[in-house]
């Protein structure tokens, strides 16, 4: 089987400082990869480099495109990369406000990707927007409300709907549960887990919350100071951490 995403020796420097370096992994269709580490460990830099928001200084990010097979997204042309990020890729920001258009209604937010790929039938756009609102557990009656009238959890779910409406194959998530209270987090995780399984999505999830990766991720990478210090199956890494930093990370979680 061809990996959906092959990452080879990706490095991103900020001047002389290391953002992240020597990162390599393969992601297969339907697989969820977790990236954990403390603040400043290079998780978000890595995610943004993979998603094309930052240009890596070294390395290859090879995506298995529908049309042309595996292509290096770092060297592909910008229109192609932007097309990819509207269709086969999705990016869920930590703050829903970064990923939503706050002055556009919920329906318009979901419809934007559809219209960006050429859908020009109002009725069908609205129907799909309503369908997706239902799938992320937002009432139909809120379709014409602006996201500013939504709670934090609803905004995050709307952002997910907006990203998944075009049926992407790879989802990048940057702390999707950050800033939400625990019960809302639990529902969001439940929803995400359902969608990932149902749509057969591959995902890369960056988080500092070990519970999130325990629930969602098949595999785990632990980062520290821009380097990957440990990787493996999620349960294996969390239950039997080998690296000193991972042991510290796992033992730092409060047991209730």
């Amino acid at each position: 089987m061809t990996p959906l995403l092959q990452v080879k020796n990706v490095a991103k420097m900020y001047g002389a400082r290391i953002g992240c370096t020597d990162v390599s992994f393969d992601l297969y269709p339907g697989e969820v990869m977790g990236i954990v580490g403390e603040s400043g460990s290079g998780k978000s830099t890595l995610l943004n480099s993979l998603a094309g928001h930052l240009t890596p200084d070294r390395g290859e990010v090879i995506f298995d495109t529908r049309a042309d097979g595996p292509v290096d997204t770092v060297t592909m042309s910008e229109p192609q990369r932007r097309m990819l990020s509207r269709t086969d890729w999705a990016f869920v920001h930590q703050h829903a406000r970064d990923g939503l258009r706050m002055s556009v209604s919920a329906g318009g937010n979901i419809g934007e990707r559809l219209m960006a790929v050429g859908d020009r039938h109002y009725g069908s756009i609205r129907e799909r927007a309503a369908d997706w609102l239902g799938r992320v557990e937002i009432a139909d009656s809120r379709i014409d409300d602006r996201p500013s009238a939504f709670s934090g959890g609803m905004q995050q779910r709307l952002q997910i709907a907006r990203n998944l409406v075009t049926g992407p194959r790879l989802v990048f998530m940057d702390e999707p549960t950050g800033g939400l209270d625990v019960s809302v987090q639990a529902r969001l995780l439940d929803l995400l887990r359902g969608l990932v399984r149902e749509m057969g999505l591959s995902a890369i999830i960056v988080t500092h919350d070990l519970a999130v990766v325990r629930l969602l991720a098949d595999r785990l990478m632990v980062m520290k100071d821009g380097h990957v210090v440990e990787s493996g199956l999620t349960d294996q890494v969390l239950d039997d951490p080998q690296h000193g930093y991972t042991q510290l990370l796992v033992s730092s979680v409060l047991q209730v």
Partner: protein
Amino acid sequence: MSDYNFAYLDEQTKRMIRRAILKGLAVPGYQVPFASREMPMPYGWGTGGVQVSAATLTPEDTLKVIDQGADDTTNAVSIRKFFERTAGVATTEETAKASVIQTRHRIPEAELSEDQILVYQVPIPEPLRFLEPRETETRKMHALQEYGLMHVKLYEDISQHGAIATAYAYPVKVEGRYVMDPSPIPKFDNPKMEMAAIQLFGAGREQRIYAVPPYTKVVSLDFEDYPFEASKADHPCDLCGAEDSYLDEVILDDAGNRMFVCSDTDYCRSRREAGHSGRLGEEAA
């Protein structure tokens, strides 16, 4: 030192503007940046249009200036006077006799011909501006033809008002490539933009010039199930009885009486001179 250079601007400036105009004509709908000059009038009063007109005029030209279709409103009168004084060109109120027409917010009702130039005053040339405030991003969107966002605006219209409520500055796609703001003309005028005359657009404050060459395809954006409609007030003109012209609503008194009149004063006058009359035509005459 009493004389101005012909049409106020110096020759180097006109040369610079003409280069921008030619580039605009070569790439229909593309916004060409130009070094807009300070003009002796405030921004928002047509500084862009005036600069384009100044660069377009020759001593043999006949100029017509309209504001919301009318020849006799402040903006039109002062710009017409400006060119009478600085260029000494002939001016007219008759659409057919003019070779250069500067307009604010309307296209004349009479059909324009190949030897005419229509110059629009544009306040905000970027159709995507209210949805995407970053200039770097909108330029990229034009370059890559990422125009999905324009439909988000129309979607919002339909979801809030049940129909596309945008009535002026209705976005168009030019020659299948660039999405363009036609300046704040009513959408009634949009279909007229496929015309024989050259159309030039000048935005002074925003420092952009763009153009639509003659017989260029101009399509108003819409949805398959909500097609574009060139709407107008559902009345005939009360003075000349025209049913095909764009109308202004005028409130007559405090008792709720109102009248609808052609916004194109020249069109209305020429019709009345030809003997047409509307509901209030006799009283007014």
